[in-house]
C-alpha cells in the first residue's frame, strides 16, 4: 500500500506527468464546479426561503461562507505544499504553493468584502470588529505577506523556499490568532455552520449552501490545476517539451 502511494507520489511530482495528466481533470472539475455553483447560487438567490431574523440579506451567505472556508483551506494547502517542497525538494509542490497565493488572497478578500457588506443590514455598520471578520482580515494580511515576500526575492527558487517557511509560521499561528481574536471581540454571533453539531439552519437553506461550498472547492481545484500548468510552463521554460507546448498556445 505504502509502496503504491510512494510510486503514485513520485509520478505526480514530475512536472511533465502532472502537466499531461491534469488536463482532463481540470476540464471536468471546472465544468462540474460551474454547474454546481450556478445551481447553488440560483437556488440560494431565488428559491431558498427568507430568513426569519435577517430577511433577504442572509443570501450573501452563499458566497460569504464558501469563500471564507476556501481562503482558510487554501492557506493550509499552501503550508502543506510548502512543507512538501522543503522536505522532499519537490519543485512542483512549490509551484502549487505559489499559484495558490493569489487564489487564496482573492477568496480572503471576497469573504472580507461580503462580510463587511452583510454587516451593514445586520449590525448597522459596514465594519464590526467581529471575531471572524477580524481573523479574516489577518488572514488577508498573511496572504499579502506571502505574496510580497515571493515578489521581493530575486530568484524564484529563493522566493519559493522563503514563502514556504513563512506559510509554516502562519499556519501554526492561525489557530492562536483565532483564539486571541476571540478573546477581544465580544460582539459576535456563533459560527453559522459547524460540522460537529446540528446546524440551526433550515434544510432548504442548508442544501444550497453546502452545494455552493462544494462548487467553490471544485472551482478552486480546477483553477489550481490550470494555474499550476501555466506555472510549470513558465518555470520549466528550458525543457524541450515545454517549449513545444508554449508554441501550441499560439495556435489555439
Amino acid at each position: 500500500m505504502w509502496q503504491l502511494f510512494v510510486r503514485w507520489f513520485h509520478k505526480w511530482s514530475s512536472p511533465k506527468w502532472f502537466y499531461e495528466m491534469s488536463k482532463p481533470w481540470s476540464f471536468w472539475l471546472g465544468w462540474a464546479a460551474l454547474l454546481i455553483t450556478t445551481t447553488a447560487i440560483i437556488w440560494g438567490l431565488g428559491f431558498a426561503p427568507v430568513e426569519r431574523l435577517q430577511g433577504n440579506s442572509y443570501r450573501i451567505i452563499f458566497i460569504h461562507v464558501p469563500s471564507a472556508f476556501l481562503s482558510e483551506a487554501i492557506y493550509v494547502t499552501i503550508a502543506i505544499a510548502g512543507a512538501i517542497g522543503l522536505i522532499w525538494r519537490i519543485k512542483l509542490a512549490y509551484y502549487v504553493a505559489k499559484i495558490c497565493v493569489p487564489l487564496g488572497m482573492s477568496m480572503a478578500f471576497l469573504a472580507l468584502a461580503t462580510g463587511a457588506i452583510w454587516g451593514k443590514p445586520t449590525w448597522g455598520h459596514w465594519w464590526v470588529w467581529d471575531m471572524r471578520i477580524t481573523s479574516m482580515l489577518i488572514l488577508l494580511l498573511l496572504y499579502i505577506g506571502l505574496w510580497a515576500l515571493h515578489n521581493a526575492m530575486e530568484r524564484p527558487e529563493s522566493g519559493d523556499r522563503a514563502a514556504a517557511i513563512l506559510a509554516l509560521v502562519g499556519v501554526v499561528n492561525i489557530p492562536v490568532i483565532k483564539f486571541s481574536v476571540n478573546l477581544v471581540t465580544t460582539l459576535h454571533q456563533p459560527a453559522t455552520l459547524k460540522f460537529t453539531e446540528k446546524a440551526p439552519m433550515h434544510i432548504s437553506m442548508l442544501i444550497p449552501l453546502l452545494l455552493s461550498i462544494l462548487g467553490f472547492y471544485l472551482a478552486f481545484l480546477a483553477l489550481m490545476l490550470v494555474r499550476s500548468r501555466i506555472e510549470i510552463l513558465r518555470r520549466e521554460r528550458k525543457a524541450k517539451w515545454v517549449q513545444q507546448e508554449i508554441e501550441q498556445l499560439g495556435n489555439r
Partner: protein
Amino acid sequence: MTKLAVANNLFCERDDRILFKDLSLNITQGEIVHIKGPNGAGKTTLLRRLIGLSWVVEGDLSWHESVSESGIRPDGHRFWYLAHRPAVTLMQTPLENLAFAVAMHQADVSEPSLWAALADVGLKGFEDVPAHSLSAGQQRRVALARLYLNLPQIKLWVLDEPFTALDVQAVSQLETTIESFAEQGGTVIMTSHHGLHHTSVRELHIGAAA
C-alpha cells in the same frame, strides 16, 4: 592517497545562463586544487557548493568520512572557509574577531597562540584596534590569521581569492603557508587569479575557458 571528495555531474545555471555542466571533480588528500576561470564563471558558487553553502548547483557530491560525518558536507570544525566576505566584523578588534572564529569551531586555543597568529600575519601592535580603522589589506589579514593557528583538527582549507588586497610580501608568505599545510597532509581548495608555483598544484578550469 584518500579521495577526500568526489563530485559528479555538477550543473549550475544563473539567470538562464549555464555556468558549468557535467563538471566532475576529485579531490585527493594533500593536494592543492586551484579552480580557475574568468569572472562570473561560477568559481565562488562551486566552492560554496562543496561546503554545503549553496543550493543553486545540482549534482552529486560526497565527502570522505575523515572530514565529514554526514558525507554530504564537511564538518564545521574540520575546515576553514575564507569567503569573499571575510567575516571580519569592523566594530571588533582583530583579537576578538579571531577568538570568535575559533569559538565557532569549538576549538580550544590559548590567548598567546591567538596573539602569535596575529603577529604572523603582520598585525603586531594592531591586536586591540577596532578593525574599521585598519586598511583593506590589514582587514584581509585578520581573516587570514586563523590559517596560522595550526589547529590539528583542521584538515581542509577552502579559500576564495585569498590573495585579494595583499602586498607582494604577504602574498608570498601566504603561498608558503598554503604549501606547508599541504605538505603536512592538509588539503586546499582555492580560487585565485594569481598563479601558484608549487609542484602539487592541480588546476581546474571552469567556465568559458574550458
